[in-house]
């Protein structure tokens, strides 16, 4: 059994706070996404077309290619931590405000379970 929808989604979508959330998330997420894809692709491109550069030894026998591959780990985990911080200090706060004003949060276990039953789980 489904309950009638009482939240006015269209109104939320036009709410200035939601528009702000949308703008901030869009630029952050897609910017980070583009940056990590580009940084990732530099590895196979470098390995294929810039082998002379990748072969330069910097730290004993450790060469540019190895250090670059290792830097991928650092950059990737760095982006993950950066996003997590940004999300909990910024996106989550706005989302919680909107939810509090317009409806509810699926934060409480009992609410989630009850909702599951209503949708027919």
């Amino acid at each position, binding site marked *: 059994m489904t309950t009638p929808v009482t939240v006015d989604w269209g109104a*939320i979508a036009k709410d200035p706070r939601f528009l702000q*959330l949308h703008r901030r998330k869009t630029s952050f997420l897609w910017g*980070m996404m583009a940056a990590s894809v580009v940084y990732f692709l530099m590895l196979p491109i470098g390995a294929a*077309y810039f082998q002379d550069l990748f*072969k330069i030894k910097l730290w004993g*026998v450790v060469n540019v290619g190895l250090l670059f591959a290792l830097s991928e780990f650092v950059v990737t985990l760095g982006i993950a931590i950066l996003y997590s911080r940004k999300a909990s200090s910024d996106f*989550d706060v706005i989302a919680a405000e909107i939810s509090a004003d317009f409806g509810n949060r699926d934060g409480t276990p009992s609410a989630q379970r009850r909702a599951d039953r209503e*949708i027919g*789980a």
Partner: protein
Amino acid sequence: MSDYRWLTFTVFAVIILITLYVTYLATKRVRSASDFYTAGGGVSGFQNGWAIAGDYLSAASFLGIAGLIALYGYDGFMYSVGFLVAYITVLLLIAEPCRNIGRYTLADILAYRNDPKKTRVVGALSVIAVSTFYLTAQMVGGGVLVKTLIGINYETSVACVGVLMLSYVLFGGMVATTWVQIIKAALLVIASLIIVALVWAPYGFSLPAFLQDIVVDPRVQARVASLLGDPAKNLSAVELGQRFLEPGLYFKAPIDQISLGLALIFGTAGLPHILMRFFTVRTALQARRSVVWAMAIIGGFYLLTLFLGFGAAHAVGPANIAAVDAGGNMAAPLLAQFIGGGPNSLLGNLLLAFVSAVAFATIVAVVAGLVLASASAIAHDLYVGVVRAGQPVTPTGQVRAARIATLVVGALSIAIGIGAKGQNVAVLVGLAFAVAASANFPCVLLTLYWKRCTTGGIVAGMLVGTVAAVGLTLVSPNLTYPKAVKAAAHKVLDGEAAKRSAAVEALASADADVVAKAKRDLAALDKAVAKARADIEKWGAATTSFMGLEEPLIPMKNPGIFSIPLGFLAVLIGSLLSRDRRAEDMWHEVYVRQNTGMLVSKSTAH
């Protein structure tokens, strides 16, 4: 090694008993469909992070990548990087919206604003296709591995993997599967840390000192020389060793590498068994925490593969690793045995048994996740969502449907595993990622983020993405092309006489080293000639591949670079050419919910 078989069996038995006990505990907690598919949403972000790592770090990555590094050096390590970066896509674009919109399956996300029946059918078919490819590769790989590791025959190995996996999923559903994955991931990390600590400690944990020893290792140098062929003649021994730390020994076509990279970083976000894991946590925040934990564990593990692979090359020798298994899969187990004291020591065999048991647990845990994903597509999407649409299925009926689907999928996977004995299945893992990246990923992404996306676009994207990925793989160099195989075989036979006389001449030399090398050359030559004769006989008069082609139509092994844009294009064109009132009306709801995690209705919470 056979003196210590009891040890291997004991370690296997202990690990299997622990997982079965966990399953027994879980059985009591599985009452509803939500329990069966998503562990009732009661998994924490930290637990789910370990479970994702357990689901993702398949035997292919644990044994396969360590093997690739041991045999090909730097290029093997490049593989590792793609597997980790893939989680950026999952973290930024997929995990949280999927948690907020979906319930049990990938098709739930598609059905939310589109025509539920149509999208459930195409979504479920694509999920089943991806899972079947991946499952077959795991079953065949697992069968071969268990056979090599503990010496039972292939069919029994496949059956063992299948039956054990079925007992987890059938009785314990997602609750048991999650715990098996967590246990397995923890064991995998512990095993790797122990080996790496032992391998690296003698160098005072210095990276350059460790790699310096790889560069000056004569067996590594010999490996590079044999990989490079004639160009190796101008290089000094140390230059050959250094070459092992440089790109280009495994990947020959640059475009192939880029294509594979794209399939990895977008395909992971479309793998149904990974997506399903985000429905086991309650909130978007927990979903985010799961991915960050998973990335830390997966990233840390792949860093260790660098030491596992190079360590095995140095301790065991690339040629010895390739002799046991041509793909290098035995690199990590052999390394474990070596650092424990070798084949005749108790500790060596204990470590070997431990690593083997972890590899076995790995296969079973990954297979369990895949079977659960396809069973949910069949029971939840096709049966409850399409066949019985409009006639609600009782909670008990839903769980029964899920268990029946699990049993069918599990039985089929054992049958396929045994049927595909001896086939080259490596291509299937790449294919699973390619279909996930070209069909599932564009559809899920665009329905969540693009207002104008419609049912027509989703159906087109799923079909075009899947057909493009499968079709291009069928005309790629992955298949066997008899003409090329026979040409290579004839070349070996033509060169035989010259090489043999050169080696025989060298046998008469006074230098012991030269004689030893000549003996090795002769043995290698005999092996190559035997293989060439066998190939010519095997392919007989055949001139074309399975698809009727004399040579591949595309140069790359992974179709991602073509099929991913095709999948996106199909969703775009399909959406722009069709109108879908429901998809438009639901857009605000989807977009607000995916961003805020708000529930469907206020009244449900109070």
